């Protein structure tokens, strides 16, 4: 994973660049100066594995979706190319592009699975897809040659060129795939993928169309490997199902990526350059009936060992060790935040246009949710007007957070209607609701630890445009605006820090900054004042008032009745999944139903009453 704080000493960068340049040049001239076909063959297979591992890493390392079936792509690429060459007489160097296209389609379909389920289900799907395609390829023998195999035409070029066309096309493809992987890391696409790995639900809540991100990530990796598979098919000139759709290839890909360093740019390449020569060595030095089993034992054991003892991989472990050694200044404590007076006028870039102030920004009617037989939310009606602060209170367990989860789409409602500024959204996904103007914070702040604070702020996406994904992580236009938002919250010093280094209260403020970045029409705040210092709480109240002034509707869950009373135009009181009262804080605290709901909780109500009268006498 990328360390927070982008400053890497230029010295180290220069050395790294030099090493890479020398390695690429050495690989490029190697076949010209040596005609050792053994090493050429080994390097060809190494390039193939490195392309596979680099592609795997975009989905597995950046987005955190581990595939155990990536040999599907080499198989599909190889068979597409092989079939086109054998039956249509199309040059494999053209056919492999078709192979890449087939793989892109397959990856797109498989990635659909991640729309509704996460993590291990994706792993299972890739695993199952590999098995299925192997079975289909065997059965469909008219096309694939089945268990007899499929022979490609032999290369027609002069023998004096040896394996150069394979060698250079795969080397070129490797350079291209690493370049694409590097581009992804630097772009908004990569930013989103790392955010998905950290906290996918939260990323979706910030408007990121996470399924599009994952689709692109998986398709990119699969396509490169598919093209490589086509070239590989031409190279081996004979395909049989069990060798091409071999799960061991998938295993080697995962092994290479994990060994080198999952989520790093060069880790998968490094891993492939360790693993493939090793595989080559064992296949030449081991013989006899047990050779296959011994190899399996060796590589299975190696994979297990890497997961157990080197889970981050060589490169990140090495970097961590070096960093400890040199103790970079950037790892020291974040400077205390400069104080900004609460309620100060918003910095230039953040001021929002005037909104329409008619009609409710949120309308909820008859909202219901049952979990099994339990009716957790039971016919809730609720309105939030623009330019207002609406409170939501109720004893613990009265499903206030669940109501938030229903409104923002984390949980699908079983019945009822939700409208954002008049548009029905109860069937839309989270990103769509976010694009519709909704933003929320969580009871415990959820930030993305692998991104810097600044990146956390600019991540939020108001609408999905493909071109946006290719912009840099933080564009030149966004940077000053985001810095202004941070300065406004008194967090100017933390822009390049990791959120993990900040205090709880500061993290809450940054989550608020993410919300402000979306310029929402409706904000849901889940206990924003809980557990933070009075000073921060004061600053928070200022921000909420300003949101109201700017025309935003705020729905606020809070237990601190004084805090509610000082901010809210009206409050709803929930108990047992229903709204039991609605009105000003003073009105609802006199309501017998509310007293009943808080049965025995007289202290809270007494405080509420006092707080309310304090507010009134002050005004």
């Amino acid at each position, binding site marked *: 994973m990328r360390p927070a704080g982008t400053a890497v000493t230029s010295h180290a960068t220069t050395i790294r660049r030099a090493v890479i340049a020398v390695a690429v040049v050495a690989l490029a001239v190697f076949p010209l100066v040596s005609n050792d076909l053994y090493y050429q063959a080994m390097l060809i297979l190494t390039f193939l594995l490195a392309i596979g591992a680099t592609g795997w890493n975009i989905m597995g390392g950046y987005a955190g979706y581990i595939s155990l079936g990536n040999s599907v792509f080499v198989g599909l690429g190889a068979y597409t190319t092989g079939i086109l060459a054998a039956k249509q007489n199309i040059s494999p160097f053209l056919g492999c592009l078709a192979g890449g296209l087939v793989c892109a389609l397959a990856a797109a379909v498989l990635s659909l699975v991640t729309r509704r389920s996460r993590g*291990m289900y994706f792993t299972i799907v890739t695993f199952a897809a590999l098995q299925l395609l192997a079975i289909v390829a065997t*059965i469909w023998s008219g096309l694939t040659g089945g268990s007899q195999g499929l022979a490609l035409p032999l290369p027609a070029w002069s023998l004096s060129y040896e394996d150069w066309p394979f060698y250079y096309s795969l080397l070129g493809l490797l350079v291209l795939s690493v370049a694409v992987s590097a581009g992804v890391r630097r772009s908004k696409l990569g930013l989103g993928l790392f955010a998905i790995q950290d906290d996918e639900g939260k990323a979706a809540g910030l408007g990121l169309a996470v399924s599009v991100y994952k689709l692109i990530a998986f398709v990119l990796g699969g396509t490169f490997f598919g093209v490589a598979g086509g070239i590989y098919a031409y190279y081996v000139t004979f395909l049989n199902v069990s060798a091409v759709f071999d799960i061991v290839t998938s295993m080697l890909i995962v092994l290479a990526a994990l060994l080198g360093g999952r989520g790093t740019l060069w880790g998968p390449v490094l891993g492939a350059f360790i693993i493939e020569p090793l595989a080559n060595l064992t296949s030449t030095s081991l013989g006899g009936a047990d050779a296959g089993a011994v190899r399996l034992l060796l590589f299975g054991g190696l994979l297990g060992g890497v997961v157990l003892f080197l889970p981050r991989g060589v490169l990140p472990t090495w970097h961590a060790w070096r960093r400890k050694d040199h103790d970079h200044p950037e790892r020291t404590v974040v400077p205390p935040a400069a104080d900004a007076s609460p309620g100060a006028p918003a910095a230039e870039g953040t001021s929002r246009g005037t909104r329409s102030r008619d009609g409710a920004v949120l309308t909820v009617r008859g909202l219901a949710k049952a979990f099994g037989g339990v009716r957790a939310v039971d016919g809730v009606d609720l309105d939030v007007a623009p330019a207002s602060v609406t409170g939501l209170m109720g004893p613990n367990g009265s499903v206030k957070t669940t109501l938030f989860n229903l409104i923002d789409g984390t949980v699908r409602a079983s019945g009822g209607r939700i409208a954002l500024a008049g548009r029905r959204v109860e069937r839309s996904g989270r990103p769509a609701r976010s694009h519709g103007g909704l933003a929320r914070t969580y009871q415990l702040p959820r930030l993305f630890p692998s991104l810097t604070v600044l990146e956390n702020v600019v991540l939020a996406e108001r609408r999905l445009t493909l071109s946006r994904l290719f912009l840099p992580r933080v564009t030149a236009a966004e940077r000053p605006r985001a810095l202004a938002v941070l300065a406004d919250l008194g967090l100017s010093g933390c822009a390049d820090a990791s959120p993990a280094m900040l205090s709880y209260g500061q993290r809450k403020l940054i989550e608020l900054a993410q919300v402000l970045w979306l310029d929402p029409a409706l904000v849901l705040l889940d206990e924003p004042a809980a557990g933070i210092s009075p000073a921060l709480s004061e600053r928070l109240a200022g921000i909420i008032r300003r949101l109201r002034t700017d025309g935003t509707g705020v729905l606020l869950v809070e237990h601190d009745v004084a805090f509610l009373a000082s901010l809210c135009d009206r409050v709803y009181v929930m108990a047992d999944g229903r709204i039991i009262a609605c009105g000003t804080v003073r009105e609802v605290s006199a309501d017998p139903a509310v007293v009943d709901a808080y049965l025995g909780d007289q202290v809270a109500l007494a405080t509420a009453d006092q707080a309310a009268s304090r507010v009134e006498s002050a005004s």
Partner: protein
Amino acid sequence: MTELIQALIFGVLTGSVYALMATGLTLTFGVMKIVNLAQGAFLILAAYLCYTLWARLGIDPLLGSLIVTVPLGALGVLVYRLIIERVQRVDHGLTIVVTFAIALVAEAVIALVWGPDPVTATPAYFNRAFHLGSVSVPAAQLYACLLAVAITVLLQAGLRRTWLGHAITAAAENPDGARLVGVEPKKIGTWIFAIATATTAFGGAALSFLYQFTPDSQDIWIGLTLSVVIVGGLGSITGAFAAGVLLGLAESVTSTYVSVRWAAAVPTILILLVLLIRPQGLFTLAARQDAAA
């Protein structure tokens, strides 16, 4: 008509055995959210052990499975304590990768011990069948089915009636809550892995006389058991039973009316379809997911 009835009977018999084979996976998957890809290799290992007991000592596989539960249970404990529990602490997402590695190592070890040739146990009832009119019920399949039903009922009763069963259920539904009332996840995890791999002995016994098997056939069996678990829904033993029967029926109908070769594709097709359309499984209710968040 007879053909259809025959296909249905065969489907139910096979399906219950599939469910039996998937019990271990159901337990680890459902309670601990760990997909143990080594379960297929454990199944094959159990089959080889039952086969060896039968071939060397003449012990019937159905009886031998009781003996085999002991080494397999121990293996489950070792694998959990030495490997899975550690990986889980560092990165839960990598547990599936490490079980995949264990599967490959186990396959290699099995191949080194027993060799690559296909074997199968052939006890006396191996080729016998009961006849009901024109329909025949193969004895081996029937015994395996009875074993499957017995084990499922026992496990279900164990989960409902014993403290350990309650603790396991509690840990599955709400890990944090379970910890608060003194259910230690590591201890529960050890028990689950012990039970999960020990019950694999019964699945392995059925496998040993119903099918030919080789070390690398673990690949097929893990695909099949995964399919049972996914179609049945996470961690539900009865759901897995229903899914096993559904899968058995689908395979049986496919091989009768389409082709035997396509029957092999049924489990993986079902996995893909279910995960695309109804990822929570066909036989489960929607459960509250946000409680922990």
